């Protein structure tokens, strides 16, 4: 039998509480009155006792969430037969018991701590993780025994971090979905409504609220006494987190409306705001992290690609017969793969945790692709072993998918080097930011006709030539200027004379 348990009124007339901490985990046996959760109300931190003897089936709220009274927070499985005597108590460990004066007529007392189970600490089965890692798990709110279940070996700091970030991503995405649903349900946050709410701004002397609500209000810069509410508790006005959030939202909309009105009055300062989230935010944090961990140096040079332009126009027709649109990019990718093979020191990543430089013996080339939502980097694997047309076809397919947002995360992983083709839009040189954990990125400038000195049969003439610029940013922790120059020279060699790619 399954029993749903709603957050009870933990104080007198409390409308909601912040779930501070779970004291049980799914699968735990609980007995009646055993505390299952700690909930913080406006007044105190209280233990919420289990109403039944049973087994925890599911936790419906997350730690830190503000839960209204009456919402289901936990689901118990109640089995009349097996759970009659409540929790299973492990026998005391008498090898470590020093009070072994068995002459005494009473049995050795049970170790304390069995009374309340704690998911963060499992004493009975030893966990193959050193104390510092176990502490980290608690800091990150990770139940280390669930990592132990999935990996039989020793648990490291990075396992715990990986697990923590994985679960927080899942959490975030589920939150986002929930928020999106809510938005759908309330399709019209019309300005007139929010203005009306604004007019209803309260002006009280005191307001009762749970600490989390106060915290959020402070973050949003809202004085709780100004938030309108009909709810009361102990005769005092009571404000819920939801009310504060709505109020904050309404105020924001209103401010924007005011800004817009002002904007029409003063056309000199138009601005608009849009959320900084999703891909934009991911790009932001990846770029920040890369720029601040890797000392970037950009090596720049140009290359005469007249032969490449000829080669491509020769092959274009042929490629089209295979339904492939041949651009310059596949040539550059092949050139880079060949140059990386000649300069393996560039095809590396830095494993800081283990203080090792990892040299990759495979050549997966990422192609930075501008999309409407921001930059995505699909990866073409094993470019060295694939033919030019194959690379062209795969690159086209993947960049297309990136633009359609149908690229899977796997298709963006595992790159060893990235090419950013800014030239497709225009421009000469750039200072690209490395796509970590890679150690170098090459930006291609536009292929332009420029006057160049050409030597032929000992005679120098100035001729219009096709010239492309190369900007190679590299991580100076693992690579030096000489490495970058050598690598760039190799790329230039293949681009200047694409026939060499035939030898690859």
């Amino acid at each position, binding site marked *: 039998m399954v029993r749903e348990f709603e957050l009870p009124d933990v104080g007198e007339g409390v409308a909601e509480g912040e779930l501070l901490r779970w004291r049980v985990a799914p699968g735990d046996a609980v007995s009646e009155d055993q505390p299952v959760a700690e909930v913080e109300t406006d007044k105190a931190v209280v233990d919420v006792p289990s109403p039944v003897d049973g087994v925890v089936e599911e936790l419906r709220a997350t730690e830190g969430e503000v839960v209204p009274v009456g919402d289901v927070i936990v689901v118990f499985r109640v089995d009349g037969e097996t759970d009659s005597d409540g929790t299973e108590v492990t026998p005391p*460990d008498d*090898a470590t018991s*020093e009070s072994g004066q068995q*002459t005494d007529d009473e049995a050795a007392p049970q170790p304390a*701590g069995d009374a309340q189970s704690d998911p963060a600490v499992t004493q009975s089965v030893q966990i193959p993780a050193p104390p510092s890692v176990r502490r980290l798990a608690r*800091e990150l709110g990770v139940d280390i025994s669930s990592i132990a279940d999935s990996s*039989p070996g020793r648990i490291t700091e990075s396992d715990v971090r990986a697990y923590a970030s994985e679960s927080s991503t899942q959490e975030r995405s589920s939150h986002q979905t929930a928020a999106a649903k809510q938005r759908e349900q309330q399709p019209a946050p019309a300005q007139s409504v929010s203005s009306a709410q604004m007019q209803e701004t309260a002006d009280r002397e005191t307001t009762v609220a749970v600490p989390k609500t106060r915290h959020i209000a402070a973050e949003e810069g809202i004085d709780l006494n100004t938030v309108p509410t009909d709810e009361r508790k102990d005769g005092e006005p009571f404000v819920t987190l939801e009310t504060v959030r709505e109020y904050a939202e309404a105020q924001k909309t209103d401010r924007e409306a005011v800004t817009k009105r002002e904007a029409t009055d003063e056309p000199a300062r138009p601005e608009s705001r849009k959320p900084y989230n999703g891909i934009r935010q991911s790009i932001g944090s990846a770029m920040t992290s890369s720029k601040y961990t890797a000392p970037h140096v950009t090596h720049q040079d140009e290359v005469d690609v007249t032969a490449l332009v000829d080669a491509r126009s020769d092959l274009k027709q042929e490629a089209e017969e295979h339904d492939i649109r041949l651009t310059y990019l596949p040539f550059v990718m092949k050139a880079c793969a060949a140059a990386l093979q000649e300069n393996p020191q560039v095809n590396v990543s830095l494993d800081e945790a283990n203080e090792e430089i990892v040299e990759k013996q495979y050549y997966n080339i990422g192609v930075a692709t501008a999309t409407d939502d921001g930059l995505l980097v699909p990866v073409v694997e094993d470019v060295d072993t694939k033919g030019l047309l194959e690379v062209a076809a795969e690159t086209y397919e993947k960049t297309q998918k990136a633009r359609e947002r149908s690229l899977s995360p796997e298709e963006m992983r595992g790159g060893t080097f990235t090419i950013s083709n800014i030239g497709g839009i225009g421009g000469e040189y750039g200072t690209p930011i490395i796509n970590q954990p890679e150690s170098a990125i090459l930006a291609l400038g536009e292929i332009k006709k420029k006057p160049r000195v050409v030597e032929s049969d000992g005679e120098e003439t100035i001729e219009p030539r096709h010239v492309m610029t190369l900007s190679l940013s590299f991580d100076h922790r693992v690579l030096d200027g000489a490495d970058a120059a050598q690598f760039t020279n190799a790329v230039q060699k293949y681009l200047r004379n694409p026939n060499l790619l035939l030898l690859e």
Partner: protein
Amino acid sequence: MVVGDVTTSTDVLVIGAGPGGYAAAIRAAQLDLDVTLVEKEAYGGACLNRGCIPSKALINGSKLASKAGNSEELGIYADPTVALDEMMDWKDGVVDQLTSGIEQLCTAAGVNLLQGTAEFAAENKIRIVHQGEGQGSESLKFERCIIATGSRPVAIPGFDFDDEYIVSSAGALSLETVPDELAIVGAGYIGMELATVYSRLGSDVTVIEMLEQALPSYERDIASVVRQRAENLGVDFHFGYTADSWAASGDKAVLTAVPADEAADDSDVEITAEKILVAVGRRPVTDTLSIDAAGVETNSQGFIPTDSRCRTNKEHIFAVGDVAGEPMLAHKGSKEGEVAAEVIAGEPAAVDYQALPAAVFTEPEIGTVGLTTTQAANEGITPVTGKFQFQASGRALTANRTDGFVRIVAAKETERVIGAQIVGPEASELIAEIAAMIEMGAKLQDIGSTVHTHPTLSESVMEAAQNARGKAIHKRN
């Protein structure tokens, strides 16, 4: 004169300045909390004043005397005279140095120290009664409280401690002369340690134990090494007997022991002794605290149940050390004290040790950590063990102490080290390596491949680990 209560307040109140309490107080003060530590007797608690430290001092002293007088095979002939009162003075000096050190550490950390007996007046209020007529009392309000009141020796009916004939472990650690005869009730670790001390100092020691084994909570092969050695020192054992009654006869006591199993047709035993040491266990000190006034629950044995963060049923009250339950070990109390203080300061601390080492300072010593093979099997782990006898250790031979062995227990499937039992020289020190290895999740190979200094006893740990893998060099695997 009645002095009216003056109420002051503190963030964190710690009751009891033993290893659990002072560690909690110092850590809490380090974490910038306002801490008050109340102690009714002496800083350092039972461990420093009446337990670990004084007993180890006497164990060392008596060992030295015994070694000096019993090393003829090394060509040493001596007949040392022991002035027990002087040895006690030296021991007291050691204790004083340590306890005053604790006081200084607390003061330096910014802990407020208060002398007196604490009694709860309410959930957030404590009354501190000062010793001595007319010294009065004061009240203290607190936000959080850590109970670290420890434990005291259990008396058995009819054998009240009088410090003349009947002594507790505390009394036995401060005798002024070596008793001609010493009867010890209880062959647990306290009884066995003190049996070793006094037999080495020349007492006729007789031990009465209800069960059929010395050190009943240890494995038989471990305990029998200690028992054998004790018998060689001249200790008499009466297993299967309980102390029934005693009577004074001149300056001696005559103790009557009866068979524990009434059905057995063994006859009663009478033992005449100058002192009777009752060492049958320790009980938590929760009865003097007016603990009900705080609403803190205790279990049927008087222990305060706590969770892994040392919290009692009351959110703001913590309990650490002996009072919070078995095993009653100073180092367990200290660890819990630190955890309680960190939890109060909002840190994600928890009592999460994988294995708790324990030592018995008998001759030879015992060191244990983690699981025995039986316990491993009970937990569904198939164990594999490796063993190394000190008889094969060069270092043990040169020290002329070759009793005992190292046994390492690992999970067969993963070869992860899960426990160890050592009986032998310096077992109390040797066990530390294995405790660290268990905490780090080490495998047998990790110990076996760690280079150990030659010639040391610690090589035996390496050999035992290798033996479990069939790869020991200095023994047949």
